[in-house]
């Protein structure tokens, strides 16, 4: 599903962040990506999101080589990924419904289908009835669930989350994690960057650790 082969990433000012990272995630697998602050977790996720390009090595997603894809193809590839962020990255001047509907509208779904899918996913993350509220009127946990709903509404085969539970208390974190496990059940691959050691230990999933630009399986 997702494959890194000897990937290197260097920032002009910072220097080498990833030095020959290789790993392979199967379909329907959940994995945590850990490492101390500045280890390059976000950088690795940005390579998948095509927000950054790697300097060498190859990245494959769903049989497609991401590392050499043309810029014009990036939007279409991103529709196969769901992104979740620590700071949610919601549009504050749009309602919850509009936020969640955005990927569907972009993908070209009609009004009826969009409405149906958005309602269904909001129900699933426990936000039914709040669709006409604005993000800032919700709690942190609720906003993160909006972010998750937006990430999965178009049924992407892979979900990429950067510190999704960073701002949440342990109880909420587990709630979010159980949502991820639910998606895993239907064959979605999930990669979560996190340094919430307690949470990672409790969850018993595969753990990948970044250290000095190299990746270790724990």
């Amino acid at each position, binding site marked *: 599903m997702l494959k890194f082969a000897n990937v290197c990433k260097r920032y002009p000012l910072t220097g080498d962040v990833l030095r020959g990272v290789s790993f392979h995630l*199967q379909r329907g697998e959940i994995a945590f990506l850990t490492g101390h602050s500045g280890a390059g977790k976000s950088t690795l996720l940005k390579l998948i999101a095509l927000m950054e390009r790697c300097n060498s090595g190859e990245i494959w997603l769903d049989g497609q080589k991401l590392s050499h894809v043309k810029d014009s193809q990036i939007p279409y590839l991103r*529709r196969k990924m769901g992104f979740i962020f620590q700071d949610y990255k919601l549009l504050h001047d749009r309602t919850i419904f509009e936020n969640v509907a*955005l990927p569907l509208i972009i993908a070209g779904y009609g009004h009826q289908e969009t409405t149906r899918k958005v309602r269904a996913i909001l129900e699933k993350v426990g936000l039914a009835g709040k669709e006409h509220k604005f993000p800032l009127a919700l709690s942190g946990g609720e906003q993160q669930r909006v972010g998750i709903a937006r990430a999965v509404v178009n049924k992407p085969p892979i979900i990429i989350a950067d510190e999704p539970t960073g701002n949440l208390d342990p109880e909420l974190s587990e709630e979010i994690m159980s949502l991820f496990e639910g998606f895993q059940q239907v064959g979605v691959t999930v990669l979560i960057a996190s340094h919430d050691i307690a949470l990672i230990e409790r969850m018993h999933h595969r753990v990948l650790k970044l250290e000095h630009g190299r990746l270790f399986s724990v």
Partner: protein
Amino acid sequence: MKLRRRKQTQEVKVPKQAKPLRQEVKQNRAAGGTAKDKLIICRDLHIQAWFYSLLRLGKTPFASAITIVVLAISIALAGSFQLLLINFQQIAGNFQTSAQISLFLRENINENRARILADTLRKNPAIESVQVISKEQGRALFKTFGSFGAAIDMLDENPLPVVIEIMPKNTLDDDGQIETLVNTLKQRQEVDFVRMDMEWLQRLQAIMAVARRLFVALNTLLGFAVLFITGNTIRLELNNRQEEIMITKLVGATNSFIATPFIYSGFWIGFFAGVLAWFIVALLMVSLRVPVEALSAHYNGNFHLLFLSVADSIKLILVSASLSMLGSCLVVFNQLNKTNPQ
């Protein structure tokens, strides 16, 4: 969609990495549905973006108003200059009688021969109209020139020749054609001499040529001004909405999807600026009308200020809207290609 869903459920049972079908990749580009469905969805998106962009303008009324007013002033400048040109052309047209050519025929040419000559001249494509003034008519005309005119009665014989008055075509647009006409007329054996105020006409033609050039240059400059003013406004708007653009890009939006509402903003700005410019020009005309017509009366003229025609008004607004749209288009695509989500 069906195909994808079937594949996904299949994947749960067999978690093996399979090379995706080409079809599957394509399907991910857009949702399912027939071509007609897609067209309808696309149209709806554009209609939405159209109104949404209008709404956005309303959310920053002050900034939008400033841009629109600045644009309107530029466009009004171009519009007023065009009106000036149209009216000047009209004034020049009123003076056209001065461009009239008088052929004084030789003394031995009688009225009948003059009429035959006039008929030949009418066939000349450079000539608008031909009028024969007989000796008697000439005398009557002469008499109207006050006490001096009465002197003609003291003569036994009418000394005046038959005169043919010629109105050439396109007096103002042409350089050289009238001179050629005058020369050919001079060659005719019936003609004694030709009289025409060439110098005046040439001067007028020269002024018109300068004015037209100036008009083109000014319009080009103002066109660029419109491009830059709108472009800059849209650029600021893009900067204000970096975060939103970044998020939209991350959920798979193409540059054209993001650009559409901004381009429509450009349209609205140009449209409103065009309408406002029309009102500015109208106001200018209304305030000028009374004094100009009073001035005209002093010169026994029956000059009326011409205003922009309906077609010209529509053209003004359309040109303004499309230039502004073009300006935002250039800026939006340039900026979007440069910004990558961080």
